[in-house]
């Protein structure tokens, strides 16, 4: 099994058709399970019940970053080897990543209001997420404004490469610019900083759920993109006939 087999859209459609129900089902079980289990955890002695927002906030933030990395890899595969499904997967992933970024920002604001006393603070982590959101918007806007699909894939691929470098650069530049309010690593393995197991295991389940959910959404959207391309090809054939 190599990714090159799935450069054939027909093969990709066949395989994903079988895999999708399982993926969607397990994503639903893990997401609901993680969030409900998280909701039933005891209240934190300092943060009270607001701690429960962590089960949405952390997985969404994690996926927001990972989806961009996935887009970067998919763009590289497209640019180097012209893997068409890969380009479509990058396109399909972008809006999901933007929504995940928005969820992370919104839940962070709702959490920050009672805990930090402010909806928004120009903290390095918050700021770099806002910048990541801007990059997502630019990427999506470029995809939708170029008509020829191959040119659009090429241009967005180049933008994704340059954007990745600058997103990373901004991430460390903002550290220079302002001090943070946000905590450091949330899932540190060092025993002293470690989150209590009561919260950790539901969080792992929720993170797994978000990962599966993202995979399922990307596959569904990629399938839609492939169908759109087929439809466009059929229409073009009709016009000529």
């Amino acid at each position, binding site marked *: 099994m190599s990714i090159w087999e799935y450069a054939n859209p027909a093969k990709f459609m066949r395989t994903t058709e079988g895999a999708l129900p399982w993926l969607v089902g397990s994503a639903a079980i893990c997401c609901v399970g993680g969030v409900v289990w998280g909701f039933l955890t005891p209240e934190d002695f300092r943060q009270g019940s607001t701690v429960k927002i962590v089960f949405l906030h952390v997985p969404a933030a994690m996926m927001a970053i990972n989806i961009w990395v996935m887009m970067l890899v998919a763009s590289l595969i497209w640019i180097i080897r012209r893997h068409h499904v890969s380009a479509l997967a990058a396109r399909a992933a972008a809006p999901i990543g933007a929504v995940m970024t928005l969820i992370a920002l919104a839940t962070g604001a709702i959490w920050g209001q009672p805990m930090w006393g402010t909806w928004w603070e120009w903290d390095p982590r918050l700021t770099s997420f806002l910048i990541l959101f801007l990059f997502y918007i630019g990427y999506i*806007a470029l995809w939708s404004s170029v008509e020829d699909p191959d040119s659009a894939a090429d241009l967005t691929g*180049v933008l994704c490469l340059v954007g990745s470098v600058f997103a990373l650069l901004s991430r460390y530049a903002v550290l220079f610019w302002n001090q943070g309010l946000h905590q450091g690593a949330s899932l540190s393995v060092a025993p002293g900083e470690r989150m209590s197991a009561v919260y950790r295991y539901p969080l792992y389940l929720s993170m797994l759920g978000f990962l599966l959910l993202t995979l399922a959404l990307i596959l569904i959207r990629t399938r839609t993109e492939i169908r759109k391309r087929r439809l466009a090809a059929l229409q073009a054939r009709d016009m000529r006939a």
Partner: protein
Amino acid sequence: MIALLIRDMRLATRAGGGFGLGVAFFLILSALVPFGVGPDRATLAPVAPGILWVGALLACLLSLDRIFALDHEDGSLDLLATAPLPLEGAVAIKALAHWITTGLPLVLAAPLFGVLLHLPMQAVPALVLSLALGTPALSMLGAFGAAITVGLRRGGLLLSLLVLPLYIPTLIFGAEITRRGVEGQAITTPLVFLAGITLAVLALIPLAAAAALRVNLR
């Protein structure tokens, strides 16, 4: 290459509206800010470094679409692409011409607008130095954005959406240098970072911009 540089600069100066428009925009911005935040020195001086940097950035943005759009319309961009000169070189030269016609006047005019915004005198060298180091990166990144959007009919808004996030690191370090100049602190660290960003941009972005142009010219 020199012929191309001279041609681009001549077009920018003679075609009306391009040359000096950036500086005029910068002037208007510097004149509008006091109306917005109030005229007294105590409010203006602390925000002056940031306003000047954001103003320079926006002024630079104004003329970006001209880098490739006119050449794309009359077909001379296709000639450039097939010429013996590598397209990366042509992109770098056109970015240089853009910098000379918009970036350099901004650098030279900035101390004057600093006076309008009550920027303390001791910060002027830091302001000029940071702008002189940072604006070449702005022109080069702008050329990249222009290369991506050159084939689009309504590229202007998209261009700013794509380019402005790329300007963030330059803006952070440039404004930081000026702010430290105001407070009389050492400016070496952000200066080195800014120089590093500019050099990396000048070395690598022409490759990306040329790749985008080749896609658009296909």
